[in-house]
């Protein structure tokens, strides 16, 4: 059976070139990059190379990149250390109702520590309206965290515009963006966009798991989240994950050598998929604006690789497993089951009907996804949705 992997927002297949360089770093250049001898030097070169590739991809200086264990650590560091860096200036933090748990949970921690937090609502397509942000900003605001791309529905936030509003109103405030789903998928240049802190995860971009980085703009000094031997200029201690970072560097280079081409391809796949949903009874696409403009234009306002669809009357977990039987791998829009309700915050925030919360799947594409795979997946949905819709509770 052909394997059709449409869960690239969960994680991606590691590029063979990235896996090769990681293996090489493990088997040959196994030194500790802090060691003074040649083995250490050799290992350090992989890190330098990766940092250079990343800096080029963002058009930022190399020193602004701190390698972390992945997106979660980057978000934790940005929020916890970002708030601490500005604690003398104020006490107010702004974020949105649709952030990933790795932003939401640190924010809750900050709330426990005494910070006041505003959770911004979003519109029916998952976008923060600039005026909502303007209204929420106060003299006391020190940190604003808004994701670049929502992981559940693929909404793309107008972060350049939002960052500008923040800095104009309150020059001291830090603007953080969780770009874990956005990096590489949309053109983001933090310096130009006025982003102070930006989190990225490697494994969403065909690099190994356990890799990622935090961009910290020049002249901004954060205290570390992790203390120890003082690696990475005291900013993030712990022996660097050399194989992972080497793989990340190669994956980033590969992606950005083809970024435009990949983006166009992803948009084409998403559009093909969204169009095909018209023939699936009861299917409702989330996060793509309605309107008279052509679908292509409306899709261009969203992230290129994520499509969220609710299937009326079908339980997402059942449909997910039924697709799996056909070799098609997707995610449920919200990780929930009858015993453990954890209904998605994003779907609720964009006003998805209660009966659809548990009927929503996320399809996410990669640069390798083929038209034919979209067609097979769409055909499978046309076949399964009416059948599974017959069997329900109650």
């Amino acid at each position, binding site marked *: 059976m052909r394997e059709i992997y449409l869960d690239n927002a969960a994680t991606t297949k590691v590029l063979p070139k990235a896996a090769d360089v990681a293996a090489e770093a493990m088997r040959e250049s196994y030194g500790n990059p802090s060691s003074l001898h040649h083995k250490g030097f050799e290992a350090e070169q992989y890190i330098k190379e990766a940092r250079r590739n990343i800096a080029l991809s963002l058009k930022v200086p190399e020193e602004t990149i701190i390698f972390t264990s992945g997106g979660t650590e980057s978000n934790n560091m940005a929020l916890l250390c970002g708030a601490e860096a500005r604690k003398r200036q104020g006490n107010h933090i702004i974020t949105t109702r649709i952030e990933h748990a790795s932003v939401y949970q640190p924010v809750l921690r900050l709330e426990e520590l005494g910070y006041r937090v505003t959770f911004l609502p979003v519109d029916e397509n998952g976008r923060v309206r600039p005026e909502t942000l303007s209204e929420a900003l106060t003299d006391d605001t020190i940190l604003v965290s808004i994701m670049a791309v929502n992981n559940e529905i693929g909404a793309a936030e107008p972060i350049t515009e939002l960052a500008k509003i923040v800095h104009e109103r309150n020059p001291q405030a830090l603007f953080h963006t969780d770009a874990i789903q956005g990096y590489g998928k949309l053109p983001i240049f933090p310096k130009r966009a006025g982003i102070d802190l930006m989190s990225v995860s490697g494994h969403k971009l065909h690099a190994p798991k356990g890799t990622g980085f935090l961009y910290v703009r020049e002249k901004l000094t954060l205290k570390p989240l992790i203390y120890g031997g003082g690696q990475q200029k005291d900013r993030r201690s712990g022996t660097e994950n050399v194989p992972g970072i080497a793989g990340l560097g190669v994956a980033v280079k590969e992606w950005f050598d083809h970024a435009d081409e990949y983006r166009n391809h992803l948009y084409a796949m998403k559009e093909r998929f969204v169009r095909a949903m018209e023939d699936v009874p009861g299917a409702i696409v989330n996060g793509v604006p309605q309107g008279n403009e052509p679908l292509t234009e409306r899709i261009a306002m969203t992230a290129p690789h994520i499509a969220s669809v609710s299937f009326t009357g079908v339980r997402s977990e*059942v449909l997910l*497993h039924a697709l799996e039987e056909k070799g098609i791998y997707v995610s449920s829009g919200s990780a929930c089951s009858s*015993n453990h309700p954890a209904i998605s915050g994003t779907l609720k925030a964009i006003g998805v009907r209660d009966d659809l919360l548990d009927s929503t799947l996320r399809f996410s594409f990669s640069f390798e996804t083929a038209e034919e795979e979209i067609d097979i997946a769409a055909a499978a949905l046309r076949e399964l949705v009416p059948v599974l819709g017959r069997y329900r*509770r*109650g």
Partner: protein
Amino acid sequence: MYQAFLIKYAEIGLKGNNRSYFEDCLVKQIRYSLRAVGDSYQVRKEPGRIFVECPEGYDYDDTVEAISKVFGVAEYCPVEICKSTEWDDILAACRSYVERNVADRNTTFKVFCKRGDKNYPKESPEICADIGEYLLQCFPELKVDVVNPKLRFTVEVRGRVYIYTDSFPGPGGMPVGCNGKAMLLLSGGIDSPVAGYMISKRGVYIDATYFHAPPYTSERALQKVIDLARIISRYTGPIHLNIVNFTEIQMFIYDRCPHDELTILMRRYMMRIAERIAKEHDCLALVTGESIGQVASQTMHSLVTTNAVCELPVYRPLIAFDKEDIVAISKKIGTYETSILPYEDCCTIYVAKHPVTKPITKAMEKSERLLADQIDEMTERALSTRQVIRIMPE
């Protein structure tokens, strides 16, 4: 260091002429359980006792863990063995026992003696008195208390002489294998693993049947059942787990029969299939985790209708247990944490909002006639396509 364990059994000691059969079963089970810990344990019968002699450098905690899971063990005592039955050697051994194993000697004690060797020159009261006096000389801080001693200093004189002070409760019951085999209907819930444990505790070998319904139940739900079987196999010994695909039958019932009867009808077919497998495995009974009134399918009326399809007796060890009591056992035997993992089992997939609670067997039979044209064929298919996994304790 204790060189051996003395094992006391309760119930099988009351047997008559076939007592040695039960003792042999217990010896076999103890050997089996210890095999995972190491291979040089000597397990042998002595009148009224079983002795486990441990190899040099054995792991005390692992050994206790293994012994304490063997059904039929009423109590176990870590013992030291005297190097001879010479009186002076016995006294020396008593002294060194206290030196090694009694840290707090500012306590009360009484000497007990079991004189299995009726030809031993001293009689029990004399042995007790002499050892007591000797210990008082050696350890002046000890005090005698014949009513409520804190330290029960016990000397057993048999072919050899054993000394112990501590006795720990075992699980009780009867050794597995002395009472034939039963088929457990195992789900991923809290109750059925406990039911299997309890029946097994009466000396019964257990095999199990699980009904899964892909895509309505997931791979993880199946893995959870395998994990549960593995946990109870630490007590019951190896289990043949039969995995039956029930989707087709479930759908068929859904399509043809009144929805408020679904669960009962499903249960009836599960019982039929489990009984067929039970007979193939030479099982003498079915075992379920049902408890009166716990859910709609476990009312007195429902139990009558599901029971009606079975020829074999159906044992329901939890029938009069409250949920909290069942939970307490599942925590004790270590299945609880796995049982509460949130994966669907096929009984909860599409329960009606108001299932029948007082079904009548005749009415169920009438509904089942709606299935007559295909159900036998589907049942055969479910049986012939089932997977059997042999689950071994880890």
